[in-house]
């Protein structure tokens, strides 16, 4: 990637961070929790985005950011107060800014109308802060018109010129101009490391120059202040350039000197130079040569001309010297007792190296390092391999007859400990707090609340709960849908809420926590809860449950997850992004997770989602199926049992049921489902593993035997081979064999009968 493209990527990454800070800051201000630091940080976030956007010529973004920044400037200087109304505009602007960044990054079109409206509102706020009349709303889509450096939005000093325009180039430059320049530097000028010589040299570049140095004010050497300014210069300049170009030379120093620039008629004769040699170095070396030449005229105690001493350097008019040694020069002839300038600087790499160390040692703000994700992924892969090989090595050693009590065996145990620790540490590198997902929620809540006409407050907890990066990325979608559901279906409209004695504003609470080795996320709302009667009706109408089915409250609640429960016409459109709960459940299950809902009528509902902490390893039960070894994810397993012949019933064809306490569950012949055998497996000689699938329905997997329980490293089958139905992934066991990891839900689904409703059928 070339340098610019890399920096562009950095820019967009940084934008994302700035936008997050911006929103968080605005929310803090809204909650009354902000201090001046927050307000400044919010300003800086937009300021930074504007700066970078300008460098990449993202004009729309620059324009919006500029207006936003100006408004924030009024806010941080206290001229605009932070009322709710104002913050709401800011938050909407923050959303719009985020969209513009997205458009800049990925293409597409921004909502020009919305942006134009926001810009007008922001300008209105600025005018308010300044006590002025708000400007007339910009005609039509203002945003697209923002191209080009001379956009005039009618706000006078808010004109923003992204590209500097050199006006002097536009002025007619004709023929030779002659200027008479008087230039007397103040001590201040030198204190800022500006240098008369350089300024004069710049004049030389403009044309023909005659310079006279006036030394009249230079005091005796003993009275000289090293940091003083005694010299002045009279310059006659003959140039094709304009006056503004000439003044430009003095741009940096014009306030730290006495300057006059006059254009004079060209036929004016040569300036009277009073016989002093115009070559400054010459003058000064003559001054150096004899102390007695100077007559103190102004008699001031002004310190010595720093430049004079500097120029006294042995023939090095080009070299810049440090000013410190000047102090020594009052006592002795200006010996080159200086560090640095003429002498070659010590190896730049050493200086750089020191500075780099300094950066680390001086407690620099960053306690983190940025690492390529690819490297971390590769490291995790390698560690996975390490674990596999370590297990294999131990097993082979024992098989070869290694004594369990031997030193080598102890070594293997320690090796296993160490390897597990490495694995845990490495997994932790990729573990991230869910905060990054939670950060998108406020905006989502704002938008959904707007569209559905509800008032919602979002409360989040446990944002620092950590989970593997791979899981985090796939959390966002299900979380989004559940929150949409909570706001759209769960919460009542404000009027309705008031009627039933609730506050107008509904609360959606999202909490993340660790529980028994998994991450649990709860989404609760204080809405109306699930209308169980209605849900049961819908399910029954759609044939998902028998009309007279006897279901517990909890079972009714979870009916919403059934495939086919919500059809397109029922899903409220929410800008056409409605999704059924069954899709949500499936995507969570694809992550190895579970989701369920519980509800209290009138009080609210809670979605509970549990996910594994990582997608890279799996706790599994190793089982034999046919002559193969298969891994069943432990999270799916409820219990295992050895079927007795009395418990196994036949049910049409080869289908079998197994009685477990009071329920009859379908017995899934795994060997047959996976194609390992064509004959029904012997039920009584095998093991039945009770598992819970999609709709909470339970089944029993029939396998031959259980070999053990282990944590295995997940290897993707899809990436290395292809998608195999019924198989989720693969792993390598300790003895080097490849074992396939079962996709429990898929296997159960392909077997024909569903469990729950055979309570009745079997009776």
């Amino acid at each position: 990637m070339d340098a610019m493209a890399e920096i562009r990527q950095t820019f967009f990454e940084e934008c994302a961070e700035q936008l997050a800070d911006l929103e968080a800051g605005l929310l803090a201000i809204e909650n009354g929790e902000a201090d001046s630091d927050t307000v400044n940080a919010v300003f800086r976030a937009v300021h930074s985005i504007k700066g970078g956007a300008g460098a990449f010529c993202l004009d729309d973004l620059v324009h919006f950011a500029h207006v936003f920044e100006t408004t924030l400037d009024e806010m941080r200087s206290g001229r605009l107060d932070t009322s709710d109304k104002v913050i709401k505009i800011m938050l909407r602007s923050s959303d719009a800014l985020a969209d513009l960044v997205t458009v800049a990054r990925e293409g597409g079109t921004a909502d020009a109308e919305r942006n134009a409206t926001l810009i007008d509102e922001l300008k209105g706020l600025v005018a308010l802060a300044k006590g002025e009349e708000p400007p007339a709303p910009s005609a039509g889509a203002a945003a697209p018109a923002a191209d080009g450096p001379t956009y005039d939005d009618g706000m006078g000093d808010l004109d923003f010129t992204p590209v500097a325009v050199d006006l002097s180039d536009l002025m007619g430059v004709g023929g030779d101009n002659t200027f008479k320049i008087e230039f007397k530097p103040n001590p201040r000028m030198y204190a800022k490391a500006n240098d008369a010589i350089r300024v004069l040299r710049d004049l030389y570049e403009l044309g023909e120059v005659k310079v006279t140095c006036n030394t009249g004010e230079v005091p005796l050497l003993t009275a000289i202040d090293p940091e003083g300014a005694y010299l002045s210069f009279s310059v006659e300049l003959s140039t094709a350039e304009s006056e503004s170009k000439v003044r430009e030379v003095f741009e940096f120093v014009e306030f730290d000197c006495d300057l006059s620039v006059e254009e004079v008629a060209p036929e004016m004769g040569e300036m009277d130079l009073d016989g002093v040699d115009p070559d400054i170095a010459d003058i000064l070396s003559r001054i150096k040569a004899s102390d007695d030449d100077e007559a103190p005229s102004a008699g001031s105690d002004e310190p010595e001309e720093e430049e004079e001493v500097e120029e006294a350097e042995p023939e090095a008019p080009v070299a810049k010297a440090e000013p410190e040694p000047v102090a020594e020069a009052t006592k002795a002839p200006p010996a080159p007792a200086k560090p640095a300038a003429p002498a070659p600087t010590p190896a730049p790499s050493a200086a750089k190296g020191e500075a780099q160390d300094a950066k680390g040692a001086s407690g620099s703000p960053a306690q983190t390092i940025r690492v390529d994700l690819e490297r971390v992924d590769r490291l995790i892969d390698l560690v996975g391999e390490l674990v596999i090989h370590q297990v294999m090595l131990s097993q082979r050693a024992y098989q070869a007859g290694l004594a369990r009590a031997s030193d080598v065996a102890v070594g293997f145990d320690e090796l296993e400990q160490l390897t597990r620790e490495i694995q845990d540490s490495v997994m932790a590198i990729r573990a991230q707090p869910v905060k990054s997902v939670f950060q998108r929620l406020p905006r989502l809540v704002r938008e959904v609340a707007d569209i559905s006409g509800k008032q919602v407050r979002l409360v989040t907890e446990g944002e620092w709960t950590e989970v593997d990066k791979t899981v985090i990325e796939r959390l966002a979608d299900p979380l989004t849908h559940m929150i949409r559901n909570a706001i759209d279906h769960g919460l009542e409209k404000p009027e309705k809420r008031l009627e039933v004695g609730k506050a107008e504003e509904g609360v959606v609470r999202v909490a993340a926590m660790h529980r028994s080795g998994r991450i649990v996320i709860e989404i609760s709302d204080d809405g109306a809860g699930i209308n169980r009667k209605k849900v049961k009706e819908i399910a029954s109408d759609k044939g998902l449950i028998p009309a007279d089915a006897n279901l517990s409250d909890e079972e009714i609640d979870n009916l919403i997850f059934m495939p086919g429960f919500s059809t397109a016409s029922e899903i409220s459109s929410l800008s056409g992004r409605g999704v059924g709960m069954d899709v949500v459940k499936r995507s969570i299950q694809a992550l190895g997770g579970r989701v369920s809902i519980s509800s209290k009528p009138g009080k609210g509902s809670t979605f509970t989602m549990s996910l594994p902490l990582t997608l890279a390893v799996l706790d599994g039960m190793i089982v034999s199926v046919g002559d193969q070894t298969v891994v069943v994810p432990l999270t799916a397993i409820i219990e295992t049992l050895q079927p007795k012949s009395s418990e196994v019933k036949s049910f049409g064809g080869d289908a079998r049921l197994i009685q477990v306490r009071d329920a009859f569950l379908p017995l899934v012949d795994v060997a047959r489902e996976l194609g390992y055998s064509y004959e029904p497996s012997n039920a009584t000689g095998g093991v039945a593993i009770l598992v819970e699938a999609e709709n909470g329905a339970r089944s029993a997997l029939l396998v031959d035997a259980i070999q053990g329980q282990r944590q295995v490293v997940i290897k993707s089958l899809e990436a290395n081979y292809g998608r195999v139905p019924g198989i989720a992934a693969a792993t390598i066991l300790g003895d080097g064999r490849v074992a396939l990891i079962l996709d429990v839900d898929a296997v159960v689904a392909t077997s024909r009968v569903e469990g729950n409703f055979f309570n009745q059928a079997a009776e």
Partner: protein
Amino acid sequence: MSRTILTIDDSRTMREMLKATLASSGFTVVQAEDGQHGIEVLQSMGQEPDVIITDINMPRKDGFQFIEEVRASADRRAIPILVLTTESDAEKKQRARLAGATGWIVKPFDPRKLVDAINRVAA
């Protein structure tokens, strides 16, 4: 013998852009992330930088405060300091001058202008 530039900006993007521009013109670049960090880095450099380029709006210590502190320090006070600013208004420039800035560069910066400005203020 290349010149060393100390760049101070809280924006990662800007730091990288400055580094890319300056390094390709043969300068050695040392970076800091805000005014406070800038002071620390400056003090720890064995050889002082030839030019300092600093942003204005930064957390902890802003550009103005940084410049004032440098100008008031016992040593390292006469290093040329250029201020990076998107502000086009005279007031900010005046403030920069008063704080002791040697000059300013407007951002988004034209790489050539940046190098020119550096060459103008450095020896």
